[in-house]
């Protein structure tokens, strides 16, 4: 309810209940009055019919005050309830830090594109710097000059090795099954169902075993590394290491890379075996092949070169996943949402790394005739 007093002041009459549950009232009518000519001399309040109020009223008043002061119009708060006056005083007591808010102001589209580009550039530089540092640290590891706790390494090996067997078994058995199923449907047309064994064996051993193990480990260990290092950053544990002169790279990253790089080839071997088992399951139950024929056919098809090639790929994937997980963890911003973001981006980054490497391997192995 708005009105003018005789001496040209704007009188705002507040009535009824002002509750947040009723929504925030619009200040547009007040602003129109403030903008009107002649401008009101000052703003007064009248609250005899005001029933109950909470922050809704205070928010409204604060906005009205800001708008009025912005136009050089005085606000006389004496008509307001004493509690509201005190809250307003409190809200205005500490001057706003100018550039604290400016930093978060909305940016225009171009500005956002620009800053995204710059940050993409920085993130690439950071990644390369991390890679360089990690390589240097590894150089020192070979020279024996790197310190980490042996017990940490053993624990990590257990976590990324033995404890991952369950999920790797499940996934790889099923993938073997699927490969055999798809292959069988095609090969049956030529009456060459026995070649299902070749298909599954070669595919698993050369590529799919390593790839599946890598994807499982990216979701499992890459994420775990990022979350662990990220929360260590939040709790300043990383700072504590750094100031003590212990490089987090040596103490935290190296054992993780060593653990994953040494376990991945073994996991890959295990994955190969289970994939072949999955294929054999289809071969025996659906295609009426005997266990012995299937096994013989597989052994003939798969060469040692395939096996070692697959394990080598797994070794590289292991390094990539550990690097991605640790990098994202160490880059995490110091908040719990930062850790969440780091974990997500660790999984994404490791899978991108792994798939890119897989593509690269395919080309290189082809060129080398392997």
């Amino acid at each position: 309810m708005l009105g003018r007093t005789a001496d040209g002041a704007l009188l705002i009459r507040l009535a009824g209940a002002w509750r947040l549950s009723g929504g925030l009232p619009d200040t547009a009518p007040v602003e129109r009055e403030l903008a009107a000519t002649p401008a009101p001399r000052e703003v007064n309040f009248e609250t005899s019919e005001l029933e109950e109020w909470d922050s809704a009223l205070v928010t409204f008043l604060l906005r009205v005050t800001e708008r009025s002061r912005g136009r050089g119009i005085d606000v006389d708060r004496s008509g307001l309830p004493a509690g509201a006056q005190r809250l307003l005083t409190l809200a205005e007591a500490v001057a706003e830090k100018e550039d604290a808010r400016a930093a978060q102001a909305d940016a225009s589209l171009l500005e956002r594109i620009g800053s995204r580009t710059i940050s993409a550039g920085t993130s690439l530089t950071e990644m390369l710097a991390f890679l360089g540092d990690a390589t240097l640290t590894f150089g020192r590891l070979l020279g024996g000059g790197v310190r980490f706790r042996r017990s940490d390494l053993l624990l990590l090996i257990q976590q990324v090795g033995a404890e991952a067997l369950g999920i790797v078994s499940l996934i790889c058995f099923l993938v073997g099954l699927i490969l055999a199923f798809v292959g069988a449907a095609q090969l049956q047309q030529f009456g060459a169902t026995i070649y299902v064994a070749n298909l599954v064996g070669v595919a698993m051993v050369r590529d799919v075993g390593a790839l599946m193990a890598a994807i499982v480990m990216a979701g499992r260990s890459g994420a775990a590394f990022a979350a662990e290092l990220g929360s260590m950053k939040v709790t300043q544990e990383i700072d504590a290491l750094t100031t003590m002169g212990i490089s987090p790279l040596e103490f935290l990253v190296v054992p993780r890379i060593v653990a994953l790089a040494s376990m991945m080839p073994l996991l890959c071997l295990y994955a190969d075996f289970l994939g072949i088992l999955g294929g054999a399951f289809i071969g025996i139950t659906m295609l009426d092949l005997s266990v012995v024929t299937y096994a013989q056919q597989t052994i003939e098809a798969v060469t040692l070169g395939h096996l070692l090639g697959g394990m080598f790929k797994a070794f590289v994937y292991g390094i990539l996943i550990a690097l991605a997980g640790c990098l994202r963890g160490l880059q995490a911003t110091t908040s719990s949402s930062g850790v969440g973001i780091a974990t997500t981006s660790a999984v994404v980054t490791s899978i991108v790394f792994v798939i890119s490497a897989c593509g690269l391997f395919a080309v290189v192995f082809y060129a080398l005739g392997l």
Partner: protein
Amino acid sequence: MPGDAHIIVRDLTMAYGDFVLMRDLDFRVERGDIFVIMGGSGCGKSTLLRHLIGLNEPAKGEIFYGRENFTSADRARRVELLRSVGVLYQSGALWSSMTLAENVALPLQEFTDLRPAQIREVASLKLSLVGLRGFEDYYPYQISGGMQKRAGLARAIALDPEVLFFDEPSAGLDPISSKRLDDLILELRESMGATVVVVTHELASIFAIGTNSIFLDPETRTMIASGPPLELRDRSQDPKVREFLRRGRIGGMEEVA
């Protein structure tokens, strides 16, 4: 200049990106001082501490340890300089995957040639100094917040440092525990002869232990006073400083009212 400066800060500007937090900081911490960094919440005290121990890089200016320029030193030299430094973080920052004894033992393993049994013994000693005898094999999450602070202190003094940095040692502690922590800090300073740099809001602590101090003001973005806290309280020209020290109000609330 009297005394023998331990840490010298020269013309330091601290910034996060374009956001300048503090500029023109100039002060020296003498050997054996208990140097208090005061100021309202969010004015950059923790950030200043991070600069002093090399976790943040100055936007401008230099930090010296004794005669040595810390800011321009390379990484290896910094590590060496920091070997004589112990830090107690605002949150304790104990390594959560290690027991208390292992936490205290790690710096000893890294930087001394002691045998494992001896390390264990020294670690127990440090823990009993902070009143945590018998908690060697507890993990950080199994003890209370105040105990974590003390365990952090035990780790900070593991290598008998020459400088101890404390970020709000008594934050989150009840008055009695925080008084005990003050006593402990005094005691350790006496017995180890260390220089102490402490960030704190607690007036009681400031007067009880501080021998020198600076006051950071977020509005002018620089230090507006320095000197022994008691002297500042009684003689400071600046109303903000007197206000802070007399009533312990933080932020601008009281100044405006």
